[in-house]
C-alpha cells in the first residue's frame, strides 16, 4: 500500500532542501567573502576615508561615535597620545598603535570577541586608525555555519524537521477520519469526528461533517430497526402468554382426542417464546448496555456449563468432557455463561450419538482460549463465518430436525464481542466443528 504520509514528507523535504540549497549557493556567489582580498581592501579604504574626515572635523570622537551608531562598527583613531572612538576603548589599542606607527602595513591583535586591525594613515609616525572587526558568533563557528557545505547540511536537517511536522499536520485529520471509519465498521455508530477536526482545513472539516451526518443517519436507522424489533418482540409476548394459558384451558375441557394437536400447539408456542426471548437477548447485547464488570473464574464457569451440558447430553446418548483451569477474567457472568452455554449446546445438537463434545482451555499471552469441539458433520467452509449471523442456517439444517432457534451462536458472538473477545469456527481436520472463543484476561 502506498501511504500518503511518507510521500508528503519526502516531497516536502526534497523541495525544501533544494530551495534552501539554491539560496545558500546564490548567497555564497553574490556576497564577497569576508576573507577575500577585494573585500578587505574595500573595508581598508572606507576606514581610511572615515579617519581622514574625522581628523578634519572639529570633534573627531563625535564623528566616530556617530559612525559606530550608524554601522555598529567601532573605528578608533590614535593621534599621538589621544585615542578617539566609541567607548569602551580596548586596552590593547595603544600598544597596537605604537606597532602600526613603527612599521608599514596592517597590524592585527586578537581580542576576545574579534580582532583589532590597525594601520598608519600616511606614513610611519602619522596618526593610526584601527577598526574592530567582530568575529562570527562562537555558536555559528561551532556549527561551522560559515562554510557552504555546512549551510547545506543545516538546510537539509531543518527542512526535514519542517517537512515531518507539515506531513503530520496534513495527514492527521485523515488518520482521525480513518480511525472513526474503523470504529463504525466495528459497529460503534456513536463515533463522531467533528470535535477532532474542528481546527482542520475547510475541505477536510467539511468531509468530517459529512462523515458525521452519515454516521448519525446510519445510527438512527439501526437504532430504529432495533427498537422496532424489541417492541415487536415485547408486544408478541403478551398475546403468547395468554395463548398458552388459553391452551391449557382448552386442554382441561377437551377430550383425549385433542391431546395430539394441543401438544403440537404447545410445542410451537414454546418455540415462539424461545425465539422471541433470544431476539430480545441479541438486541440487548447489540446495544451493549453497560454490563457490570466483575472478576470471575472462567474455568469454574466453563466447568459448570459443561456439567449441565453433560447432564443434558447424557439424556441423548452423548457426553461432554471439559478440561478447565482457573483463569480470572472481567465480565458479566450471566452473559459469558450464556455464550459458553450456547456454543456447547450447539455442539451437542450436532454431535452424533455416542460421541463426545470436548471443551479445552488454554492461555496464550494475555488471552484465554476456550475450544469446543464436536464430531458432527461440521459446516461448509464458505459458511463458517455466517453461522454467527442471526437466523442463519446451514442448508442441510433447514429441516430443523436439530431444533434450536438459529440465534444461539449469534448471541454467543455478541456476548463475546461485548467483552472484547473474538469467536470463530473451523472444521477440524478429522471431522467436526471446532469453535474457538478468545477473551482478554
Amino acid at each position, binding site marked *: 500500500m502506498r501511504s500518503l504520509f511518507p510521500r508528503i514528507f519526502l516531497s516536502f523535504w526534497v523541495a525544501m532542501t533544494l530551495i534552501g540549497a539554491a539560496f545558500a549557493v546564490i548567497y555564497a556567489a553574490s556576497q564577497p567573502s569576508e576573507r577575500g582580498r577585494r573585500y578587505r581592501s574595500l573595508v581598508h579604504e572606507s576606514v581610511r576615508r572615515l579617519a581622514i574626515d574625522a581628523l578634519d572635523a572639529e570633534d573627531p570622537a563625535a564623528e566616530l561615535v556617530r559612525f559606530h551608531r550608524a554601522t555598529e562598527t567601532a573605528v578608533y583613531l590614535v593621534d599621538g597620545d589621544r585615542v578617539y572612538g566609541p567607548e569602551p576603548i580596548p586596552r590593547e589599542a595603544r600598544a597596537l598603535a605604537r606597532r602600526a606607527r613603527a612599521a608599514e602595513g596592517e597590524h592585527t591583535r586578537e581580542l576576545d570577541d574579534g580582532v583589532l586591525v590597525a594601520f598608519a594613515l600616511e606614513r610611519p609616525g602619522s596618526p593610526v586608525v584601527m577598526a574592530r572587526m567582530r568575529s562570527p558568533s562562537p555558536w555559528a563557528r561551532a556549527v561551522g555555519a560559515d562554510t557552504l557545505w555546512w549551510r547545506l547540511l543545516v538546510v537539509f536537517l531543518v527542512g526535514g524537521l519542517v517537512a515531518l511536522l507539515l506531513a503530520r499536520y496534513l495527514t492527521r485529520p485523515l488518520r482521525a477520519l480513518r480511525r472513526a471509519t474503523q470504529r463504525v465498521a466495528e459497529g460503534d455508530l456513536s463515533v463522531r469526528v467533528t470535535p477532532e477536526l474542528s481546527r482542520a482545513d475547510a475541505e477536510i472539516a467539511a468531509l468530517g461533517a459529512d462523515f458525521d451526518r452519515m454516521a448519525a443517519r446510519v445510527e438512527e436507522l439501526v437504532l430504529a430497526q432495533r427498537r422496532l424489533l424489541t417492541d415487536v418482540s*415485547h408486544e408478541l409476548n*403478551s398475546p403468547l402468554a*395468554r395463548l*398458552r394459558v388459553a391452551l*391449557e384451558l382448552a386442554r382441561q375441557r377437551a377430550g383425549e382426542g385433542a391431546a395430539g394437536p394441543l401438544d403440537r400447539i404447545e410445542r410451537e408456542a414454546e418455540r415462539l417464546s424461545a425465539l422471541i*426471548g433470544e431476539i430480545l*437477548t441479541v438486541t440487548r447485547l447489540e446495544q451493549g448496555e453497560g454490563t457490570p464488570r466483575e472478576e470471575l473464574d472462567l474455568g469454574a464457569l466453563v466447568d459448570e456449563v459443561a456439567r449441565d451440558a453433560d447432564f*443434558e447430553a447424557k439424556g441423548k446418548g452423548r457426553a461432554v468432557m471439559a478440561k478447565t483451569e482457573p483463569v480470572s477474567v472481567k465480565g458479566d457472568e450471566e452473559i459469558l455463561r450464556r455464550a459458553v452455554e450456547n456454543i456447547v449446546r450447539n455442539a451437542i445438537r450436532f454431535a452424533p450419538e455416542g460421541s463426545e463434545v470436548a471443551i479445552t482451555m488454554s492461555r496464550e499471552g494475555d488471552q484465554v482460549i476456550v475450544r469446543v469441539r464436536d464430531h458432527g458433520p461440521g459446516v461448509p467452509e464458505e459458511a463458517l463465518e455466517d453461522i454467527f449471523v442471526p437466523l442463519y442456517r446451514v442448508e442441510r439444517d433447514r429441516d430443523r430436525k436439530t431444533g434450536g432457534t438459529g440465534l444461539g451462536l449469534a448471541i454467543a458472538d455478541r456476548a463475546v464481542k461485548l467483552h472484547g473477545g473474538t469467536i470463530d469456527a473451523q472444521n477440524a481436520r478429522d471431522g467436526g466443528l471446532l469453535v474457538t472463543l478468545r477473551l482478554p484476561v
Partner: protein
Amino acid sequence: MVSPVPTTDILVIDDDVELCDLLTEYLGAEGFVVHAVHDGREGLQHAMAGEHALVVLDVMLPGHNGFEVLRRLRETSQVPVVMLTARGQDVDRIVGLEMGADDYLAKPFNPRELVARIRAIHRRLSRTEDGAPSAAGEILSAGDVELHLASRTVLRGGEEVTLTSAELTLLEVLLRAAGTVVSREDLSTSVLGRRFSPYDRSIDVHVSNLRKKLGPSASGRERIKTVRSHGYLYAIEPR
C-alpha cells in the same frame, strides 16, 4: 405455626388484565382461589396484608416494578413469591432470587409449570410446618449455626438470621447431610420440589444467598463449599 390462610389463596400481580382473567379461570379449575391485582403499589398492599398463601409477581409492572414490590414485601413478610420474568432478561431471574423470591418462571410460561411450582412451594412449607412428630423439637446445628425446625428459625451465635423458606429448606438439607456432598439434582428435588433441569441456576443462587446471609464461619472459612461437578457440602468445623 400454622398459617391461617388457606394454601389455595393466591395473589397474582400482573398488569395484563386478560391474562389474569385466563389465569383465574385456569387456576380455579386446578383448585386455587385467585385474587388478581394489576398495579404494583396496590399489589404490594394486598401482599403485605397477609391474606394470601402465595404471590405470583410479574417483573414488568406499572406503579412499582416487580423488584420494588418484592424488596418492600421482604422487609416485613416472608410470604412465598414466584416471579414472572421477561424472556431475554436472564439477569432478572438471578436478581429476583437474590432479592428473596422463592422461584421464577420466564414469561410467556407454561401454566402447568406454574401450578407445579406453586404446589412444590406449598409442599415444602407444609412438610416443614406439619413436621414429623419426632422432628417437632428437633434442632440441627453445626458450629455456631442452629436451625430450630419447629419455629423455622436460624440462629448464628445466638442471633436470628432471616432466611426465605427456600434458603431455610436448603440449609436444613445441607445440615442434615453435613460433611457429605449433596448433589444439585438432590437439592433441586428437595428444595425446589422439581426435577433438576440443566442450565437452571436457582440452586446456585439460593446457595450464594445463604452464604452471604450466614457469613464466614468462626474460623473464617466458607461454611458451604462448592464441590466441582458434584454439588455442595456443609463443612464441619474441625474441633
